């Protein structure tokens, strides 16, 4: 009986395939992060890394400790549900140490909510910035008491 012999080109292809698959598996063993797949299809350690990042927001209660007068004023007007830091910027460092001033934001945050957008409800006050006024919003509006004029 004749012994079956793999043709040379097929044998070479089989060896080449084994080499490619083998090097892939080796590369995979080295390049896949250790905690991959621990909880799901992502790096488990990513959660620990995210948790270890220091928080930058202080929260409304921290503001209330020193600025309760402002908060009481705010509570009577339309902007009562807004967070202080939405307009004044992140303030964790400022809450820990009052000498460090909060990151100052400039005027654009008004139009984040008040620029006209067809998907906003009709009762919500909206303007078209282009047609409205080119100066500062605060020249005519008081942020803490929006329905009053300065």
């Amino acid at each position, binding site marked *: 009986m004749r012994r079956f012999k793999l*043709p*040379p*080109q*097929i044998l*070479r*292809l089989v060896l*080449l395939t084994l080499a*490619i698959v083998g090097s*892939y598996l080796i*590369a*995979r063993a080295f*390049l*896949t992060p250790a905690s*991959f797949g621990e909880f799901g*299809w992502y790096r488990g350690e990513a959660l620990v890394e995210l948790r270890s990042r220091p928080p930058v927001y202080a929260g409304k209660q921290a503001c209330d400790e020193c600025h309760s007068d402002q908060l009481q004023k705010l509570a009577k007007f339309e902007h009562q549900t807004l967070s202080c830091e939405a307009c004044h910027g992140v303030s964790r460092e400022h809450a820990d140490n009052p000498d460090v001033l909060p990151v100052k*934001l*400039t*005027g*654009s945050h008004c*139009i*984040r909510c008040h*620029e*006209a*957008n*067809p*998907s906003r409800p009709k009762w919500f006050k909206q303007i*078209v*910035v*282009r047609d409205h006024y080119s100066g500062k919003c605060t020249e005519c509006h008081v942020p803490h008491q929006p329905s009053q004029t300065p």
Partner: protein
Amino acid sequence: MTNEMTNIVVEVLPRFEGYVYPNEASLHPLWGFLIVLYPYITGLVAGAFIMASLVRVFKVRALEPVYRLSLLTSFSFLLCATLPLLFHLGHPERCFEIMMTPHLTSPMAIFGFVYAWYLMAVLLLELWFDYRQDLVEWAKVTPGFKGIIYRAFTVGVTDESPPAVALDMKMGRILSVVGIPSAFLLHGYVGFIFGSIKANPWWGNGLTPIIFILSAIVSGIALCVFNYMVLTWIRRHTVDMRCLDTMAMFLFYALVVDAAVEGLDWLHRGFAAEEGFSVMQIMIREKLFYTLNLGQVTIGTLLPLLLLGPLQLLRRRVPELVRRRMIFSSAVMILIGVLAMRWNVVIGGQLFSKSLRGVMGYKLEFAGVEGWWLGVVLLSLPFIILTVLVKLFLSERLPSSGHIPQDSAAGEG
């Protein structure tokens, strides 16, 4: 910051009409011009491969002169198929991470398997078996760097005995038979990605994968016609009219089937007139007027049908030069039309709100990641690769083994 913010707001809003959800209110759609190119390039790959398999599997002898050119075309475009995605996502240094953690639960991640299968198991192997005998010969007679390349591609197998060559041919045929469903899988997959998005009436349709495959075949044959005619023109050869007429015939019939199925799709959409139909009418009449009615329908379908159709009946009465020009211009128009079709699918699907009550806009820019300049660069890259491949593997200075691809049985018997 005020100016920055105001500019964005002022620029964005005039592009909307009607009711648009806030998360749709962005300056550009998420998928831009690069995602238009991705199905275009994979379609050309699949189509050019089908063209090659007409010779190998369906034994169309007249197409022999373009067999290797079609395979090399398919290969050079396949090498660039993932580039639009890579540029679109950014962070090209992370591209290997998807390879390291493959999984089967996301349709998007399946592309890794489809692509790897098509590149490594089908196209490269078919090319290798087809070229093996030639590579061994060329490695013997070519000195220098080119010789090293040929030797490397032989992978050390120098057997040129008739049984070995017969085996090569047999393997080539098997791979070609496997390759046809694989080419359908490659491009059907791209259609499936769009067709399976239920929330979008422009995409979510059972016919989408089939339309993608048919338009891929049309564009692939058109690309082979274009490449063949340009190559013969550069080499100052005469065009093999029998081959060109046969290509034109297949191009015409593929285009007829493609146009019929796309027409059927529109008839069905119009007749069913589901809730998304009114917004689709706005797409056709306004938003995609030029790319759909002019690009896809007129330039990409009607004009080539009008040029190629009469040629099938009156071939002998039309002089060769006129025939060549008619076929070449049809191929170019089809290539433009299919690009317009990809644009209509990808961009069109993102131009209306999910509320079906509003439309957005898109302006193709020149510079930037999604600009048309990068698109032009990415589309020229496969042609540059093809030029190198043609110089290496379709060189006129090298002797060819002269075996006939479709005669796989001849070598054995």
